[in-house]
């Protein structure tokens, strides 16, 4: 059996374990809430992580379409980028999939010589991390952009519309200082 088929077979268990490890990157009380609360509006973080990991795993089994990966990865990273994680911890949950897979298929990997395939698959996981890091930086840059421009976008723009602050007029007469006097 190929690694892909084996992983597809064990998909439900793998995603469940991955989800458990991913939410355990939060403090214990929070992790237990993220696992238990199933209402998507009462627990948007748990819901987003759960949907996202499933979508990502499906894509890892397929062609690794960048658009599809981003559509599942961005919502998770967007959340973790503003939470109390260091940059490394914000993206670290992806590496945890390696741990889950190694533990889950250890026996078959040995028996059926799947290590080459496993290395290839793990490279795909590394690619995910790199995409995640790009997304993380985009989110952070957005936050810095919002910090810098919020006042400008609300108050300054309103003042400018009202003509209470003015730019340099374009048609200002060209007045040169007379340096001879």
């Amino acid at each position: 059996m190929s690694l892909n088929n084996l992983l597809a077979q064990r998909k439900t268990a793998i995603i469940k374990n991955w989800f458990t490890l991913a939410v355990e990157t939060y403090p214990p009380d929070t992790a237990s809430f993220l696992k238990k609360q199933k209402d998507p509006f009462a627990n948007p973080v748990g819901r987003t992580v759960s949907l996202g990991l499933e979508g990502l795993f499906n894509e890892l089994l397929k062609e690794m379409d960048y658009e599809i990966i981003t559509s599942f990865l961005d919502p998770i990273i967007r959340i973790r980028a503003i939470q109390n994680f260091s940059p490394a911890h914000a993206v670290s949950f992806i590496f945890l999939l390696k741990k889950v897979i190694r533990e889950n298929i250890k026996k078959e990997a040995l028996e059926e010589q799947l290590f080459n395939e496993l290395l290839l698959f793990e490279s795909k996981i590394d690619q995910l991390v790199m995409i995640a890091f790009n997304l993380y930086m985009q989110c952070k840059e957005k936050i810095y952009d919002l910090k810098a421009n919020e006042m400008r976008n609300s108050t300054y723009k309103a003042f400018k519309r009202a003509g209470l602050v003015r730019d340099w007029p374009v048609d200002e007469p060209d007045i040169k200082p007379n340096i001879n006097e």
Partner: protein
Amino acid sequence: MKELPNPDEFLSKIDHKPSPTGWMDTPVEIRRGIACHAAKPDRLEYVGFPNPRDWSCFDEDWQLPENWQEILHKGFKERLDRFRSVKIFMDICVRCGACADKCHFFIGSGDPKNMPVVRAELLRSVYRNDFTTAGKILGLFGKKAKKAYGARELTLDVLKEWWYYFFQCTECRRCSVFCPYGIDTAEITIFGRELLNLIGLNIDWVAAPVAFCYRTGNHLGIQPHAYKDMMDFFTDEIEEVCGIRVKPHFMKKKADILFITPSGDVFADPGTFTCMGYMMLFHFLQEKYGLEITWSTYASEGGNFGFFTSHEMMKRLNAKMYAEAKRLGVKWILGGECGHMWRVVHQYMDTMNGPADFLEEPVNPITGTKFENARSTKMVHICEFVADLIKHGKLDLDPSRNDHLKVTFHDSCNPARGMGLLEEPRYVIKNVCNHFYEMPANTIREQTFCCGSGAGLNAGENMELRMQGALPRLNAVKYVHEKHGVNMLSCVCAIDRAAFPTALEYWLPEVDNCGVHELVANALILPGEKKRTVDLRNEPLPGMEDEDDE
């Protein structure tokens, strides 16, 4: 964000699971992006608050008065005697956890100390230690016994933890809806912040508006001529949109009604469009029914950041409302779209600065409706007023002028939970818009999620915190956006209108934000107006383009 660890440190922390210590053993770590800038000394000096100085929460030394523990102990004791509610809230919590996962900051941050029960425990642990007999007796048996009882001494670390977490609560009261005992954690935060102010521990985004408001009448420190200039500009804009030149009244003596709204409506987008909406509505009512509503550049702020500071400061800032109503000799006060202003008005103003026996019990002179709910405060919410006008068929409306919008409504925390204003804004929106969609039931009305920036937390430096707080609300907006194509999030709060455009840009850039009276004015047909081809934002109305332009 804290400093990155070096490789050795990092490797020692490579375990992905955080430490499993309980909240009392987890030391506070004040983070950039979450904490706000400290109050600058001149703000505190201006209103006579204690311990003005330059300091930062990232400094080791917060430059506290030497006897800070004594000051806080005394302040705590005084307030336990003064506020029966707080005394009860200290005693009756059984830590059932019903509130734990209801806070938008907990849901968004995942930080257990943002569970309302833990936020309250920050104070309660010191209460048990200092003010209960059990705490005092158990104290004799050492720290372990004390800890088992949930008591601890007020140390510098505990104080820093208070400061950090009481400025991570927007006093929205969602948690209190779920508490079987009705504990109002907003009051716990109000109480906590009041104590912190006794030793000069405020944030600048609260302290500056307070000082400005005390000096000039509004949070931004805008002086009367600038206020008037801005309104003049809106008059030009309105004329461009509908060909009618409105003539707002300023400080008009013996006008029928005094109108007070947050200054954010006058000075910050997109509240400015709501402000234009009020002006058009008042023009309509004057032209059609002869009703005179006056603005005031003195009572130029409905909001009250004193509420986020201390009861006394709230009272000082609120006083101008009744004072101006009395000076002008109006019959009653109409209030604009604001959040916390309505909690102050509805729950405090009458006993704080009343009785307003110089005003009449509010009656809508056009419909004859008595606003009995406002009998004591003499102040009516503009949504109640307009809903009443619509119900009696007194407004001429063309809701198709909002057909380019698919609208949902965010119940702002204070009007919804603080005064029960749930139906009126919806009634108004449904009469001025053809496409209205509700968000899921557990995210609206009494259970509404906060915008994440209320109670003075709408600063820039705590942007990560604000995005955490806005997550649950915008998650629900995202749902109606994906399901129904909703592209406009309406609300009745100026802080919302300051907070949402930024939060939407991060979480859901496809959706915009507006006040309800912007929608009203889009639909409102002014007597003698020209054909409208653009909305109040000067954006073309699809299907109503000017024939000459086609």
